[in-house]
């Protein structure tokens, strides 16, 4: 088994607060792993450390056994670590199509082309449209991104991530804040990507049914620490996890429905 992503004592401290605390984790290629943990557990921060948006206080990130420390977030994306954002992060004044087209373009040589019209590259536009089709957003392709509903922005975010065509996909709560009717479509997209079988996926989510359905393994973060890591079955039976987190979460779940 070759590891695609690995962290070693990954730690970050904000002032006195240790948001990610000596996390050691490893993930094989083409694996689907979910990260769960209560609000403020450090999940998004963990992503920021992997993608290079934040520099760790201590520890390392390895991508395909290569130390990523000296690489910026730009270089990490180019190497194959793509991410989506928990808080929607798109180009608000550009059209939906242009948002995705820009993402498609980033891995092409012509990203530095400055003397030809952008429409001289119809294959990029077509690729962007296909991705919009996949996330069921094609009919909105000419809309300005800021005018999309929240759920639609989440879909756009996913289309942009897929456009990068990176080996690793870091998905930060792709369904956060979506209405219940919108969730299945996204779930379906994630399933399709998983079934194509050529991506390694790391997913942060709160929806347990979705996680159990998709994951090969689950890791639990709690107060920045790795509380447990194992198959869905192991995690569900793990008593520490039950006490620390899942119990509460299920209560919440029941309370909501």
């Amino acid at each position, binding site marked *: 088994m070759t590891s695609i992503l690995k962290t070693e004592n990954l730690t970050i401290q904000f002032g006195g607060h240790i948001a990610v605390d000596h996390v050691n984790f490893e993930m094989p290629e083409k694996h689907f792993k979910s990260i769960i943990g209560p609000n403020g557990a450090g999940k998004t921060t963990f992503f920021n450390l992997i*993608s290079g*948006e934040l520099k760790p206080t201590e520890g390392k990130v390895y991508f395909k056994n290569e130390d990523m420390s000296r690489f*910026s*977030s*730009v270089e990490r*994306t*180019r190497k194959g670590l793509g*991410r989506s*954002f928990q808080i929607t*992060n*798109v*180009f*608000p*004044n*550009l*059209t939906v*199509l*242009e948002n995705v*087209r*820009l*993402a498609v*373009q*980033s*891995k*092409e040589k*012509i*990203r*530095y*082309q*400055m*003397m*030809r*019209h*952008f429409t001289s*590259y119809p294959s990029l536009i077509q690729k962007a449209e296909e991705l919009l089709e996949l996330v069921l957003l094609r009919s909105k392709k*000419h*809309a*300005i991104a800021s005018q999309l509903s929240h759920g639609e922005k989440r879909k756009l975010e996913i289309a*942009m991530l897929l456009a*990068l065509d990176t080996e690793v996909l870091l998905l930060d709560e792709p369904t956060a804040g979506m209405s219940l009717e919108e969730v299945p479509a996204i779930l379906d997209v994630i399933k399709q990507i998983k079934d194509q079988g050529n991506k390694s996926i790391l997913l942060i989510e709160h929806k347990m049914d979705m996680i159990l359905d998709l994951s090969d393994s689950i890791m639990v973060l709690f107060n920045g620490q790795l509380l447990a890591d194992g198959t869905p079955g192991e995690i569900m039976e793990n008593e520490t996890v039950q006490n620390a987190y899942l119990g509460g979460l299920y209560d919440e779940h029941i309370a909501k429905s």
Partner: protein
Amino acid sequence: MTSKYQWNNIFLSIMVIALFIFPFVTDSRTWTILLTQIFIFSILAMSYDILLGYTGIVSFGHAMFFGMGAYTTAVMLDRIEPTIGVFVLSIATGMLITGIISFIVGLLTLRLKSHFFAMLTLALSGLFLVLAEKWRSVTSGNDGFTFRAPEFFKDRMMFYLVVLVCMVVVYFVLRRFVQSPLGHVLVAVRENEQRTKSLGYNTLHYKVIASVVAGVVASLAGSLYAISLRFVNTSVLTMDITLDALLMTIIGGVGTLIGPIIGAGVIELSQHFLSGLAKDYPIFERWIIFFGILYILVVIFFPSGIVGTIRQAFHKRKKQSVGKEEQSNSEEL
């Protein structure tokens, strides 16, 4: 979509043709000179729009590139000989020098957060101004020097036409530039730089390219400006030039290219009339105050400038008539 585009082009063509015919139907020296000036500042303002409007870079040092072009042309025509050949060579040399300097400056400064960058550009252009003042053997310091323009330009009309051609060419080249794949990345940087990075774009490269293109075009404007005056002094490197470019771009409409041209027209024309009025009413000598007020009014009431405001009105009307039919925004980028 297409028709809007075509209208744009038809309108532009009519304007350009009218401007080409203009010197043949009038023999007003004043107007020929005034329009020449407007074209020159249009080129400068368009170059500034690449930074401000398309990439979202606020630079207070743009005059340094304008000034370098002006000095290069002035010095070469003065020292070598006042011929068309030297004129063309001096423009190329000016562009090469500004290209190199804007590349180095950009590489060193564009990593900074935008407000630090703005301050640093201010300091750097101040540095170049002092340099020009001290390097008397070449620049003759504050007083500057006069030089002879090529024979060909003795006829103001010829110069008018050459500058007009330059402006039109710059417009089309820059329009193609901003509509290229790279140009769209510049807009992405303006919209959300951090996001552009996370898509894997090295945004520093893009910002440096934008600043080199803007610098080189500003240098061309500076070269033409020097010829139009047959004189150069350190005023070409001052903050006034940068502020003019800023004002023209904002009043005309940032991120539109055509806006800066209109802005240059508005500013130069009102400057002309106000200084005319000042002969009778001394208060108008303080025309800079009027621009200050104009600037504030534009920023408050028409933040997207003349062209931006017209486009918005046009869009609204079109939306109402076409109903929900969407339209592509990308054409405008």
